[in-house]
């Protein structure tokens, strides 16, 4: 038996029973009616509350995901540019080092080595995360990426 058919059959049987019972016992009819009205009202209140909660959940979800995606996009762009810039810097520093070695210029060698160490020490990730933090800071007016 399908669900609709079962519901109809049950409802039909229920109507018959209720009408018969009401005719034989008016007090019970009133009690049953009141209980049904109360149950129906209670259900409507719960339904309204739950619909509101689900709308709030959807709004929270959208806000959170939008914020996370924005941050992810900033980190992604920042890292792309940062690594490209670093690649260029390293290339120049090693060129300087090679020239220093060829010409025996200790100062150039030292400058190149210091640059290589310092560039390596700078963490592109830390900078990317700092950019994300800065975006959340209302006192920061502009960010260079």
């Amino acid at each position, binding site marked *: 038996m399908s669900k*609709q058919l079962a*519901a109809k059959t*049950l*409802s039909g*049987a*229920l*109507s018959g*029973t*209720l*009408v018969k*019972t*009401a*005719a034989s016992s*008016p007090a019970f*009819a*009133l009690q*049953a*009616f009141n*209980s*049904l009205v109360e*149950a*129906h009202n*209670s*259900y409507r209140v*719960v*339904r309204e509350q*739950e619909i509101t*909660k*689900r709308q709030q*959940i*959807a709004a*929270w*979800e959208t806000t*959170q*995901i939008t914020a*996370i995606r924005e*941050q*992810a996009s900033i*980190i992604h762009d920042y*890292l792309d540019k940062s*690594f490209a810039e*670093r690649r260029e810097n*390293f290339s120049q520093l*090693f060129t300087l080092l*090679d020239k220093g*070695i060829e010409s025996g210029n*200790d100062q150039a060698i*030292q400058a190149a*080595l210091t640059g*290589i*160490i310092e560039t*390596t*020490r700078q*963490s*592109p*990730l*830390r900078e990317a*995360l700092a950019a*994300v933090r800065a975006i*959340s800071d209302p006192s920061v007016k502009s960010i260079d990426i």
Partner: protein
Amino acid sequence: MPFPLLIPVVLGLASAALGATGVKKGFDAKKDFERAKDVGESAQNKYSRAQHHLDQARETTQHHLEALGAVKLRVFEDQIGYLVNVLKKGRSKISGFETEIGLTQEELRAFEGDVLKAAHVSMSLGGSAAAGAMAGMGAFGLVGSFAAASTGTAIASLSGVAATNATLAWLGGGSLAAGGMGMAAGTWVLGGVVAGPALAIGGFMLASKAEEALTEARAYQAKVEVASEEMKGVRDVLAGIDRNIEEVQHTISQMVERFEQIKTDDVTNEQAMARMVQMGRALRELLNIPVIDAEGAAVRDLHIRISGAREIAGREAA
């Protein structure tokens, strides 16, 4: 029909109409419970997939760190080892050798210490903690302690999600439906009255519970969606760490190339010796620069742990 009899009949008809709605709601509730269950299960599957992808990304980073660790170990043993051997030879042959080539006693001891530590790590390879030690070497070099190999922990304690199984069990509907219905219908049935109104009231109550179950499922789904997005963010950071590791590895190999060009064992050539020390000093410093910040390169409030390396502590959400 006499008037006094009409009232209960009208009431009975009204009750019957409302009762039919209640019964229908009861049937609809079953569908809603099933929907809630589907939503919960689908969210659970999504969470598992996101976690799996994150685990894969973490493993990739772990392997990159191990590879970098192996490179660093080799450089400590080969290039820094070579430098230490030559310096020792010079010190034994020439008085005031260190001063002449601009090297302090402390520095020489530090070089020697690193070579010894590297030899120690090398000897311990093959043990169960080898991969962890190697990843630790990759992440931090020989400076600082590299923690004992851990089993690796995934994203920790996402509120709500941890209670997944309980939620799903709850969303199963069976026990809830039985319980909810039982309480409502109990008084009627026990009172020896007809089961009809009880069934209708039970239908309304079941429908209320189904609404609540739908909300619970939606809340769980939303948390999973947010958590999955955050996990993607962590994967982006791990990919950034991977790029950083590759960059450091490339820089080390470039430096090794230059060291090999200028290295010498002629201890009488002060200038050449001084240059080799200069290059070795920079190389050693490079090897000991941590790829992963000790304070952590984590995003938002998620904590990552790279197995065998060291915890990357998270920070508060930006």
